[in-house]
């Protein structure tokens, strides 16, 4: 039986779509084909701004810009003969590539058999056959770099730890994931826990570590529960513990919980936290690979890095190295959020452009507003304006633009987002999360935040903009750990690309995106007001009063400039200035 999937739409096309599907059904019926083909309206086919879109199953042909005139042809050629009509067909390539998320949503994460059925634990089996040195060689061939932020080559980190002589070594999986808006690691821990455990085991084998730790924030209860269950069952099957897979490799794993401080994702603070101390970072060197947990050589790898490791060792480094670009191999998972149509997790090969991610995969901007920029790397990253969207996603290219790959948060911003407000948000996050140990971060961050607040209130002066840049530079150079060193990045990149917005706040006392509450005022145009009272009903501070006869008015003293009346007024009689 054929299925004709018709993509639902909103707005003007809705009526046309209904007629199209009714007409399709009746033509099928007229020709006595109702039993052979089903017409279904579906929520999403993933093709946008191409009019009426249909997909025919089982062939999978996608037809675009359809109208009623096409129906007879589609029935004749595709429904009856299975032929493709090239004139209306769209070749949709799947731009995602799933390596890290290879099993997420496919296997039952609580079943070890499910994981073994998709070649699970064959990576460690191969690693045991190769031996530590060859494993590191294989990792070098793969070109895998850390997915936790800095992009340090994984093989190199392992090799450093391997070459240190010690009676005991450790390996830690960093599952702290503190970036606001990022949840890739949580999804992997929840959806495919064994793949991360296997990666940790391989890292242990390569470096000589015999104990592994999962450091997971306590706010991730389901992830913790699934990892614990996976560890328990791996022990019961003899895949953890002594003489793994009949070899002389012993490996133990346990979980340590983090209390959700952003700084505890930084490796030296994380180590302190596991040791039971306060989560303070310390100067490096010595790096954890020489002196880490309890003074022993310690490797720290991110969740996504380790989920890649088990794949690399199963497929072979060379195979993995074919994916991505020269300097950035493999794929990257992004948590695509903000003003994008399909928010969620996407996994793409390195080298894909930002535009492809936002428009082809994410489906573009919500409500067809104008896109302004994309934020990557969370509070340590920066914003990238729209005219750079054709840049390929790689560690180095993003860095050149003043942002970073980061752990994978990707927030889409449209014309309603104010860049001063965005900087204030990210910097505010870092000020809250600063541990307070070093002065540049503790004092510099607060001073910058006060300046941004001043600018957002329309009290800024020209000098404040230079002061922002100066403090930012000092923080970058003098802070003790990555938190303080990177906290100014969102400010620096917005200053670089959106100086005109800062200037509008400082010199014209205007917020071009009408976001900064102190710089916008709302009033009601009585001529246009129909007296419906919607504005009055949504106003949270009861600043709008009136009646159907007298129309409505806003009390400027009570108004907090939240803009809800503006959003809700159907007659555009609320004026924003």
């Amino acid at each position: 039986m054929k299925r004709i999937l018709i993509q639902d739409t909103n707005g003007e096309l809705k009526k046309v779509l209904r007629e199209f599907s009714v007409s399709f059904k009746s033509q099928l019926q007229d020709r006595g084909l109702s039993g052979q083909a089903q017409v279904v309206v579906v929520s999403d086919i993933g093709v946008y701004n191409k009019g009426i879109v249909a997909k025919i199953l089982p062939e999978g042909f996608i037809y675009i810009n359809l109208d009623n005139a096409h129906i007879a042809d589609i029935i004749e050629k595709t429904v009856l003969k299975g032929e493709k009509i090239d004139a209306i067909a769209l070749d949709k390539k799947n731009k995602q590539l799933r390596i890290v998320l290879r099993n997420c949503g496919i296997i039952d994460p609580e079943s070890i058999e499910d994981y073994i059925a998709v070649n699970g634990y064959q990576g460690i089996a191969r690693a045991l056959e190769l031996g530590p040195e060859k494993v590191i060689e294989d990792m070098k061939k793969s070109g895998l770099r850390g997915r936790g932020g800095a992009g340090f080559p994984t093989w190199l980190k392992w090799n450093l730890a391997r070459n240190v002589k010690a009676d005991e070594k450790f390996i830690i999986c960093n599952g702290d994931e503190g970036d606001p808006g990022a949840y890739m690691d949580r999804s992997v821990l929840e959806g495919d826990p064994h793949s991360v455990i296997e990666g940790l085991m391989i890292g242990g084998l390569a470096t000589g570590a015999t104990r592994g730790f999962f450091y997971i924030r306590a706010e991730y209860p389901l992830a913790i529960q699934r990892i614990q269950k996976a560890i328990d069952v791996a022990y019961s099957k003899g895949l953890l513990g002594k003489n793994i897979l009949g070899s002389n490799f012993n490996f133990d794993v346990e979980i340590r919980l983090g209390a959700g401080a952003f700084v505890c994702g930084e490796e030296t603070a994380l180590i302190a936290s596991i040791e039971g101390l306060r989560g303070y970072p310390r100067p490096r060197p010595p790096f954890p690979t020489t002196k880490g947990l309890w003074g022993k050589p310690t490797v720290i790898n991110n969740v996504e890095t380790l989920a890649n490791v088990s794949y690399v060792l199963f497929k072979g480094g060379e195979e993995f190295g074919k994916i991505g670009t020269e300097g950035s191999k493999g794929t990257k998972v992004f948590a695509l959020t903000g003003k994008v149509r399909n928010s969620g997790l996407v996994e793409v090969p390195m080298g894909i452009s930002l535009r492809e991610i936002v428009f082809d995969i994410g489906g573009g901007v919500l409500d067809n507003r104008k896109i302004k920029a994309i934020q990557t790397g969370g509070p340590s990253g920066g914003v990238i304006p729209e005219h750079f969207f054709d840049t390929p996603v790689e560690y180095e290219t993003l860095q050149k633009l003043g942002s970073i790959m980061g752990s994978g948060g990707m927030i889409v911003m449209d014309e309603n987002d104010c860049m001063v407000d965005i900087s204030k948000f990210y910097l505010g996050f870092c000020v809250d999360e600063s541990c307070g140990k070093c002065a540049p971060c503790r004092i510099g961050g607060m001073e910058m935040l006060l300046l941004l607040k001043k600018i957002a209130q329309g009290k800024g002066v020209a000098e404040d903009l230079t002061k922002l840049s100066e403090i930012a530079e000092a923080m970058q150079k003098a802070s003790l750990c990555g938190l303080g060193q990177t906290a100014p990045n969102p400010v620096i990149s917005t200053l670089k690309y959106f100086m005109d917005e800062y200037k509008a706040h400082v010199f014209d006392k205007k917020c071009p995106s009408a976001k900064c509450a102190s710089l916008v005022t709302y009033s009601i145009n009585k001529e246009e007001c129909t007296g419906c009272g919607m504005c009055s009903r949504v106003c949270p501070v009861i600043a709008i009063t009136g009646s159907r006869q007298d129309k409505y008015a806003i009390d400027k003293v009570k108004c907090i400039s939240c803009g809800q009346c503006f959003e809700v007024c159907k007659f555009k009689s609320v004026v924003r200035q």
Partner: protein
Amino acid sequence: MGMTKDQLLAIKDETLKKQPASWIRVGYSTCGVAAGAKEVYEVLCEEIKARNLTLEIKKCGCVGLCSAEPLVEVNVEGAPRVFYGKVNKEIAHKIMDEHVSQKKLVDGHIYDI
């Protein structure tokens, strides 16, 4: 004493052999659960029991389409394999009535991206 590589491969073969022809997967990560996957899962389980079906139902992780959670993937013989998104109790019943029993796709809830 742990298992050997041969035993590992034997588990793989055995599990693959046991894989059912018809199954339902429910997205059961934090994003799915927060959107109501638990209720949906329970309805589907009750229906399977009530109808006495040989249909495997599984709690899985997140496929990435978090904005469309709860997601339910259905693969039964005689109908194409599809994802239903934003599923609630009512749609879950419909999936059993129309898709699973009558092999008719349910109108309005398929996400095919």
